Each structure stands twice: as structure tokens, then as C-alpha cells.
């Protein structure tokens, strides 16, 4: 459709990183998401962060579940293996992949539904295991791919495009992660690339499970209406066409170094994003918890590197598994052989 043009996500750059690669080498084919989708902006930030992190593209493994967000691994790192699995099960699949080869970088992309609804138990247990990977939640408060139901991060009382109220309070993945002993917790915003890229770089460098919550607005089914009234008012003029998905400019804003910014959302309402105070200490679990509870109570969304503990061993370190990736051990290192089998069977006579 000539009227719907989608940006080729990252701007063309000719610069080269330490591996001699340009940012093009980190890109993928064109996105089929809606024009303006926050997830595409997140992809762009990810491409930038991967490039800046000097990672060999083919040493990265992209994983996801199912959802608009989970489609995005198609749209970057053309020369990395990708695994678009089933809804909610990316964490176990990543855990298994990581078990097989500890030497690659595992980058999981999930949605708020994929991660916090159907996949919630798995996410929690991957946190506990400290599986070395980045687990990125592209958080838009809705089920985008199934057209606008509330996700577990939708605000209490918000209205869907179908006119229903959300009756359950949201999950804050950061607070949740903290309660489970997560070792890396950070939040960014798809519409502030300058703010997001360093967060992603830090996550890519983390030697454990890095949970990154990226506020990534859905421009079609956004439900973030702060006030029911304002939204209801809008609805009278609605066109009532369910399969109309109008191209939209991506939602952008700059998170100030101090204070907060209100970001208006496509469906009405807004989200208040706040940077961390200068004296914020991301290593003190208790004060981080107090800070998160305080801001949640105020309806604010703190952004930045919220918590970090680099001292915790990852899944392999904890269990003392081979430094040589398990998938690279030769068969004769694994099979004890005929004599051992005979000896072993002495106990069964």
C-alpha cells in the first residue's frame, strides 16, 4: 500500500566497530510489524547496541516465543541463528540451548503476554537459575498479535479498544525479578534510543540473567488510558473498524536526567517515565525494592539500570559443568566404553 510506508529500521551508517563490521551487518530483513510499532524502535536500539558491543553476529542466538514482539528476531542479525518457538516457552528453550553451548550469547525477546502471562512460571525459574542470557520484554500492556486484549502489565482500570476495563492490577517485572533474586534488572523506553542503547549494552555484557523491561508502545491497540472518561469521550468518534490499522509515527520522548516525562500514548492516556536519581545505588537490594515500591505507588515508571549483582554464578558455574561447550565434546569423551560397561554390570549380578 503506498499509503503505508515503514522505515527501514536503522539509519545507514558506514562506521565500523572493533570487529570491522558496519551496523548493516547487524540488521535483518524489513519488519512486517505495523508502521510506528514500538517494537521496531526497540529492534533499532538493539541493532545499535549489538554493533557497539562488538559481538560477532553469528555467535549470538536469537530466541523468542509468539507475539508481535516475538516476531522481531526476524528483523535483526541476519547471520545469527534464530528460534521463534511457541508462546511462553522461550525461557526453557533458551535454558536448554545455553546448557548445550555456554559459549554463545543468548538474546531472548518476549512480549508482556508471552513473558508474564503464559510464560510467567518459566521466567521466574530462569531468573532463579541465573541462566546467562538477555531476556528482553517488549512491554506494551497488550496482546498485540491477538488484537488488543489486556496483558499482565496493563494498568488497573484501563480501557481496551473494545471498551472493556482491565480488572486486575499489573505485574511489575522489575519488582517481581527483585523478589526472586534476579541479578540484572533494567528498564528502558523504545522511544528514547539514546537512553535505551546503553541499557542494552549493559545487559549484553552481564554474566547472568539480564532482565530488561522495555516500554514499547503498540500503536494499534494501546490501552494505556489513564482516565476512563477521557478515553470514553474519544470513543464516540471512533470509526469502529476492527481491521483498520493506521500507520502511526513511533512514540518518542526523551527521559530527562532528572525528573520525569509524561509520554502520551496512541490510545489516549500517558505513561510517566522517570530517570534514576544521581545517588541511586543499584546494588542494594533493599533500597532498590523500597524505591520501586514507592514509585509504583505514585504511578511512575522508573527507568535505567535498576539492579545489578555481578557476584552470582550462572547456571553452568553453579553446577561446575565443562568449560568446553557440552555440544562440542567428542563421543569418546562421553561414552565409557565396553570395558566400563562390563565392570559396571558387576553390581547387577
Amino acid at each position, binding site marked *: 500500500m503506498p499509503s503505508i510506508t515503514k522505515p527501514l529500521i536503522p539509519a545507514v551508517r558506514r562506521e565500523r566497530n572493533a570487529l570491522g563490521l558496519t551496523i548493516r551487518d547487524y540488521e535483518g530483513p524489513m519488519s512486517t510489524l505495523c508502521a510506528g510499532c514500538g517494537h521496531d524502535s526497540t529492534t533499532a536500539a538493539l541493532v545499535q547496541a549489538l554493533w557497539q558491543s562488538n559481538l560477532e*553476529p553469528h555467535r549470538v542466538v536469537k530466541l523468542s516465543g509468539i507475539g508481535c514482539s516475538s516476531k522481531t528476531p526476524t528483523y535483526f542479525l541476519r547471520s545469527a541463528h534464530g528460534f521463534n518457538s*511457541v508462546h511462553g516457552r522461550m525461557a526453557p*528453550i533458551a535454558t536448554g540451548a545455553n546448557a548445550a553451548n555456554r559459549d*554463545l550469547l543468548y538474546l531472548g525477546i518476549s512480549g508482556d503476554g508471552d513473558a508474564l502471562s503464559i510464560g510467567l512460571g518459566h521466567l521466574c*525459574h530462569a531468573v532463579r537459575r541465573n541462566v546467562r542470557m538477555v531476556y528482553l520484554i517488549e512491554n506494551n500492556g497488550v496482546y498485540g498479535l491477538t488484537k488488543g486484549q489486556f496483558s499482565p502489565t496493563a494498568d488497573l482500570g484501563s480501557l481496551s479498544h473494545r471498551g472493556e476495563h482491565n480488572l486486575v492490577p499489573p505485574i511489575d517485572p522489575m519488582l517481581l525479578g527483585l523478589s526472586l533474586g534476579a541479578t540484572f534488572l533494567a528498564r528502558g523506553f523504545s522511544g528514547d534510543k539514546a537512553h535505551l542503547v546503553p541499557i542494552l549494552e549493559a545487559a549484553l555484557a552481564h554474566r547472568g540473567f539480564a532482565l530488561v523491561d522495555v516500554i514499547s508502545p503498540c500503536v494499534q491497540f494501546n490501552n494505556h488510558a489513564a482516565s476512563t472518561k477521557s478515553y470514553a469521550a474519544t470513543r464516540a468518534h471512533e470509526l469502529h473498524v476492527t481491521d483498520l490499522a493506521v500507520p502511526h509515527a513511533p512514540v518518542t520522548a526523551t527521559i530527562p536526567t532528572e525528573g520525569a516525562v509524561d509520554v502520551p500514548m496512541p490510545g489516549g492516556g500517558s505513561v510517566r517515565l522517570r530517570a534514576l536519581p544521581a545517588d541511586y545505588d543499584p546494588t542494594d537490594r533493599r533500597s532498590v525494592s523500597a524505591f520501586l515500591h514507592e514509585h509504583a505507588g505514585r504511578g511512575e515508571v522508573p527507568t535505567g539500570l535498576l539492579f545489578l549483582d555481578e557476584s552470582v554464578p550462572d547456571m553452568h*558455574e553453579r*553446577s561446575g*559443568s565443562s568449560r568446553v561447550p557440552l555440544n562440542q565434546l567428542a563421543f569418546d569423551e562421553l561414552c565409557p566404553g565396553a570395558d566400563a*560397561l562390563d565392570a559396571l554390570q558387576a553390581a547387577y549380578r
Partner: protein
Amino acid sequence: MSAWAASIDERPAAPAPPERAPGVNDFSCTIATANGTGSASANALLVRAVFRMGVPVSGKNLLPSNIQGMPTWYEIRVNGDGHTARTGRCHLMAAMNAQTFPQDVAAVAPGGYVLYDATAVPSYRWERDDVGFLGVPLSLLVGEVSEDPRQRVLLRNVAYVGALSALLAVDPTVVAAALSERFAGRPELEQANQRAFELGFDHAESRVDCPLPFHVAPAHGTAGAVLMDGNTSTAIGCLYAGATVAAWYPITPSTSVMDRFGELCARYRRVPDVQPADALGGGPAGAGDLDTPAGQRDNYLIVQAEDELAAIGMVVGANWNGARAFTATSGPGLSLMGELLGLAYYAEIPAVVFDVQRSGPSTGMPTRTQQADLLEAAYASHGDTKHLLLFPADPKECFDFAVVAFDAAERFQTPVLVLSDFDIGMNDWVVPRLQWDDRFQPDRGRVLSRGDLASMERYFRYAPWDDEHVAARTLPGVDPKGAYFTRGSGHDSLGDYTEAPQRYQEVVDRLAAKHAAATGHLPEPLVEHHGGARVGVITLGSADAAVREAVEELAGRGVPVDYLRVRSFPFHAAVADFLRAHDRCIVVEQNRDGQLRSLLVAEAAAAPDRLGSVRCYGGLPVTVPDVVDGILLELGR
């Protein structure tokens, strides 16, 4: 009434087969105890001693799903000809559980004996005069050996082994040797146990005319054999097949597969630490190392998952990434694995699942056996999904088929489900010693190396394919050229997303062809002809022992039948041939719905009207009379 007694008393009246009188190396003995009293190791001791005397023997656990206090039975069959199936008869009852004493007495065949703890059952109306009662004050006897109440419970068990050994002419020196091995390095424990054994043995020998008419006599029937349960041999199979990653969620009766695998790995896969060539800067691993001795590394990783969805997810992830990975589970767990098995089928990812079947539906009877997951396993997941299945019949085949499973899964890039069951997995069987050929190399299937990729112009995931309809895969991290996108959504032979009917069909049609091609790499059926029989009997898995013996018995009774045991799915052509070659076939299986029969008509073109069905599904391993009677009934005799 007890579960076990019910199995005998409540069996529908059927023409009783002529009862063979018990005899030397041909009798059955049941030990009735309560759960949680540590009797399992005592019972195993007795069975092992018989085995070491060269006499084929089997022991079946009839357990409750409970930790402590509920009745439990252990059925021992001694048979010099090597028959190991349950006979439904009991010639000697060691009635060690006061709670079930009356019905245990009732269960003994006329002419049989009851051994009981005279300390525990002081006053009983000895209602039967067709069985002999042998009282030994076991609790009293072991009182002298230990003060510790926990240990006394265990010593009483060893004492009844002593008494039984005297009664059955089990060589006490063989038992003594086994006890020495067992308590090696713990002399106090060994001494106490030896003493308890002697006390039981001596007491019985001094009071009773030992041995009983039926008893054990040394033979040479177990040379080259081992006494092993199927979960152990499965674990050994996984070790030998080179599995490096295992993910699981505990569930009876599959748990010991992973217990054993863990023990084996700790023994055979713990190696001196080395510094690797580290791609991402592997760094100071070991800082938090809790489980592996300093300076050592594990050439394996076992993850206890949060549930079975996660377990199979991890297995799929690890296999996708080039490790041999497996899980072990039972029915409820398998039901949770459907969606991810469908993904593995469609995205063509190897996976190995051991389903140690128990009695369903639902939670059912977790410590009872059945072969009732066949349909679930064959078609697990929505859509047009099918899986390769293996049906081991005993622990030996569990070992062999574990190796076959990994080879087939990797060669055909698809899940392979090995369907064992409680009977195979949790009971000790006499089987030929496990064999290994050091020249064996695993079939890792078509995986492209950097070199392979270098010689190719471009790589596509699902094309071209070989004459077995398998396309080469690549592993992450090996080469940028090998990168592709794995998905469970519609894709074409290049691996690209598609919704175009023909491109979609091209892939799923190839999958069907690939499955058919895989048949040739799976264990063929075992067939035994009995000269021109017009009737065939078909079975699978653990029903084998009872069905084979029944076939012999039928032949003896003038009803010759041919025999076929399927060992894998999809079925080999030989199965259809067998079906065609007989006027009538009877499928014997341990489930209510005749699931193997359903698979045979649906997938081997068996004519339903020529296919009879004998189904035993009470949860205890099928007995020989059940099979004999069932077949005769089907044949209208």
C-alpha cells in the same frame, strides 16, 4: 480387601488353566509388608541370591502410592526355564504385614505355605487347613542385634530373608557374600545384617523340615545375564549414547531414570578441569561451583525443570543447539509436552523422551503399570503431528533402544518417544548382559560443518533433502553462512515464513515421507512362527513375557499361534505382512481401549473384523492365565 488380594480374588471367573504343581526352580513367593519399612532392599537381596545361584527369577513390586504405612507386596517368581511373567499364583507367602494378614493367607494356593512373624501375629484363627503355617518370631529375634528402632525394622527384613532362604534352599553363603558387598566399609552394619540373616535362617531350619518341596536348586540359567531394572538400563543407555543434557521434572515411575543418570554421570563424566578456547570470554567459572569437586568439571548438565513444559522445552533447546538431550516422564508429564513436541516435529528438532507409563487416566495409579499412552504418544500435539515410538520389552531393550532413540532423533531430526512402563522400569529383570561395541559411532545426522558450508553457495534449512527426506541442519555459532530462522509457523523449504498452500504442503508432505523412511532405522518386529498357525498373537513391550509363555502354553494345549511383537512405530511392512498372513490376529495389550489395535488398523491397514483384542488393565503386570484365557475367549474356545 487389599489391592493385591483383589487382583486375585476379583478376577472374573474364567476357565482356570490346569495348574502346574510347583516344583524345584518353579514356584512363586510373595512378600507382604508395609510401605516405608525398607523391605525393598531385603527383597532384592533374596532375588539376587537366587539369581546368583544361576536360577532365572523375577521380582515385581506391587506398591501403593504412599511413603509410609500402606500395604505393599513383592512377587517373586522362580522359574528354571526363564519364564518371568506373573502367574497369579502364590505358593509361599511371607505375610509380614499384620494389617493384611487375613487376605494374604487367603491368597495362597492350596498346598502352599505362609511364613509369618510370630512376634507380630500372636493370635490368629488358622482358618485354612490346606496351607502350612510357619511362624518365626522375627521381631524378637532381631531384638538382640540392635537397639536402634530404625535399624531393627531393617534387620527384621533381613531375618525374613534368612527364614525364606532356609525354606527355599537359597544358599546362605551367597546371601552372606551379597551382604558383605552391600555393607562394604561399614563393618558394624554388615555384622548386624549377617547376624539377622543367620537368626532367621537358623530358626527356620531348626523348626521346619527344610527345604520346602518347591525350592531353589543351583543351575546355570543366568550365566551372561544381569538382574537390572529398566530405568537403570535406560540411564546407562543415555550415558553410552552420549547424552550431555537432561532436563526433567520428577514423576513416578520415571524418577529413577534421572537418579541413575545423575549417579552414572558423576562417576563417568567428571573430568579434570581444563581451560577452554573461550569465545565470549568464559571467565572465572567455578566461583559458585557447589556441586562438583574442586579441579573437576562435569561433562553433562542435568536441570530439574519447573515442570514438564519446561523440561521438554529445555530438551528441544539443547538438541537444537547440537547436544544430545533427553527427558524422562510419565503420562501426566507427557500430556503437558504435547505443544512442544509438535514444535519439534514441525521445526525438525531432535528430542528424546522416555515415557515410563503408569496407570491412567489422569493421576490414576502412579505406582501401577499400564501401556495406555500409545495414542497420546503417537499423535502428541494438535495438527498433523506424528512421532517415532520405540517399545522396549525389558531392561535390555531399554538400554539398546535408548541408543537407537538418540540416533533416530538426530538422523531424522524429530522427537523419538521410548515407551517403557512401571513394570519394566521399576522391577528387576533377568536379562542378557548389556553389550557395547567400542567401534560404535553415533549417527548425528546431517549437520553441516564450517567446511561443508564453505563449499556451498548458499544454505537453506529445509532444502535440498536426501533420499530419506532429511535436509541438513546447521548449529548456531558455527558459521554466519549457516544461520537460519527456526519457526513453528508455516514455512517453505527454504525456511522462510509462508502461507502459500503449495509451499506449506511441500514441507509437511516431506515430513510425512521422512517419517515413513525412518521406519527402516527403528527396531523391526520380532516374529515367531509355529508351523502354519492361522492365528497370530500381537503384543508389545512388557506384555512380552506373559504372552510368550501363554503362546507356549497354548501350543501345549493344542492351540498353536504365531507371535509378533511390535517394537517401534510407524510399523514396519513386516507387521502388515503378518496381519495379512493370518486369518485372525489377537492383540494383547495392557490398556482398556485397545490402543495398539487402533494404531494397527489406522496405520498398518489391519482389517478390524479380523483383529481380536485382549486387554489387561488392572494396573498389575499381566499374568499368563490372563493372556491364555483371553486368547481362548477370543477364539471362542
